[in-house]
């Protein structure tokens, strides 16, 4: 059982939901990312999703795009990111960590090399927004062999046959994209959200967490009623951006997390 699975078991016993935070690794710099991870642990975040920056993030809206560009300018690469996780584990940070990466950086790095190094560094899962499961069964098997969860997506346009397929291969949890669109805060939740989640929950018992467009406490409470967890990203990145030159950036982002959680 890896950290993600254990976390969901634990939450289930406590009858609680998973609060998952996404940040772009290396934004504004790796040192801040390291501090933010510790702050998230303090604030009781359940799982951290660490974004590997990519030059062409086609599932992301302007906020995450900008943070990725900034991280790339500072030459944040997979080695540096894995090293950051490794050091965090050495420092007894035991929070589940999933890497969110587009397919090409992993493919280019070498899939087996990536999985082995990720495992050795203490990564628990991978989320690849542009890799539907049928495109790379080898990678899924490889990740499974090293007990790294492959987390797949469902969206409002997924038909029942897809739900079954994704539910079958997704490990750790299923990432439900709340809307048709890219990442970024929205004022309102998508109107079909509750019905779609019910449809999915009827088909699978695996945890389903909702991301994309989630930006405030009210929305999160709504989602908790029906899903197993929530993922916030852009709203956190936005907060980082607003405080980018302040010495108390980490504290302020922590306060934002506290308000959402």
């Amino acid at each position, binding site marked *: 059982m890896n950290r993600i699975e254990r976390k969901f078991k634990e939450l289930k016993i406590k009858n609680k939901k998973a609060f998952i935070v996404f940040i772009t690794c290396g934004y504004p710099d790796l040192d801040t990312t390291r501090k933010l991870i510790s702050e998230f642990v303090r604030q009781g975040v359940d799982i951290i999703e660490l974004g590997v920056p990519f030059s*062409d993030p086609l599932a992301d809206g302007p906020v995450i795009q900008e943070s990725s560009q900034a991280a790339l300018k500072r030459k944040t690469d997979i080695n540096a990111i894995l090293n950051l996780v490794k050091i965090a584990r050495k420092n007894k940070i035991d929070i589940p960590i999933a890497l969110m990466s587009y397919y090409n950086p992993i493919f*280019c790095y070498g899939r087996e090399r990536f999985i082995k190094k990720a495992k050795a560094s203490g990564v628990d899962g991978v989320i690849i927004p542009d*890799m*539907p499961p*049928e495109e790379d069964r080898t990678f899924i098997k490889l990740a499974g062999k090293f007990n790294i969860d492959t987390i797949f997506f469902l969206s*409002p346009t*997924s038909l029942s046959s897809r739900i079954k397929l994704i539910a079958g291969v997704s490990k750790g949890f299923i990432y439900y994209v709340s809307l*048709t669109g890219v990442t970024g805060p929205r004022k309102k939740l998508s109107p079909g959200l509750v019905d779609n989640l019910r449809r999915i929950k009827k088909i699978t018992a695996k945890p389903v967490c909702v991301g994309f467009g989630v930006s405030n406490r009210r929305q999160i409470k709504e989602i908790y009623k029906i899903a197993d967890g929530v993922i916030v990203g852009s709203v956190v990145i936005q907060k980082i951006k607003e405080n980018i030159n302040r010495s108390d950036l980490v504290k302020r982002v922590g306060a934002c997390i506290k308000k959402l959680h």
Partner: protein
Amino acid sequence: MLPNKKGYFGEFGGRFVPETLIYALNELESEYKSALADKKFIQQLDYYLKEYAGRPTPLYLAKTLSKYLGIYKIYIKREDLLHTGAHKINNTLGQVLLALRMKKTRIIAETGAGQHGVATATVAAMFGLKCDIYMGTEDIVRQRLNVFRMKLLGAKVIAVETGSKTLKDATTEALRDWVTNVRSTHYIIGSVVGPHPYPMIVRDFQSVLGKEARQQILKKEKRLPDYLVACVGGGSNAMGLFHPFFNDKGVKFIGVEAAGFGLASGKHAATLVLGRPGVLHGSKSDLLEDKFGQVKIAHSIAAGLDYPGVGPEHAYYKSIGRAKYVAVNDQQALVGFSLLSEIEGIIPALEPAHAIFYLKKLAKKIKKNSLIILCLSGRGDKDLDIVIQRLKI
């Protein structure tokens, strides 16, 4: 027959897209299948290709050019004579008819040189569909005449400021739009790139030019050509020409990429010549990337070639040795541009000007009795701003 069921040409192709788009790609694939089986659809497409776009285009024997280069015969497939000035309309007509079958009310497209944008805006205007075109700000400046044309045709041109501000980022932005508006919108991709079934659909719609060329050369010369030469950005005109000759083993394919400031400069768009396998814009193909898989910014004087990716079927042709890919730089393309203008009275677009220049190199290597077909994918009107500047006319 490739691609296979999963959209692969050998190891290239596939569907590397966010989950939201899977449904739309499935819908497009099944609609395309049923359209192909529908006589009415085929008749309708033929009608518009003939009556509206101006097909068939001539296969013109360029006598002066042949003599000048010392090649037996060079034939030029005149896609530049089509309505809107390039081969792009072959594809947009086909795809707009598919969009109508799927009852989509809005069309989006990406464009580099603006030729695909114009061809998309044109068919959207004719069929009364709302149309938004994504174009990088750098291309908006260098291909401004095409921006005016799109606007006159009633399309909205959305400026893309991110990344390279050229075709790569326009494509990424168009994909983001599609993810958002997937239910109402059809995305007309302009080249043989993108997730399955796009590389197949665009190839099939562009194959009309290769099929025509094959019939025309057989009629005129009673034999098949020795070489097919075409420029490759994403690779749609080249694939349109090559594909119908695939089984004609004696016919050699040469794709000409953009070497920009030179292959050694790092500023080029020679994806097949210097790239390696990777994933961009929904498919696995050759790619220009750094050592961590970040996509590089391409460079070419020709906006239509200025792209760090390439169609997966080209990567496949390269991998099996069916086609050869070479590169021609900016300066050489300008030489090709002037050459065709001056000795044949045909002003080419900067994209096929790369292929024209390559004929000079090819002439030195091949048998004197060689028979060549060159695809003149578009005309040069759109490039006059750049050429006037560069050639100091």
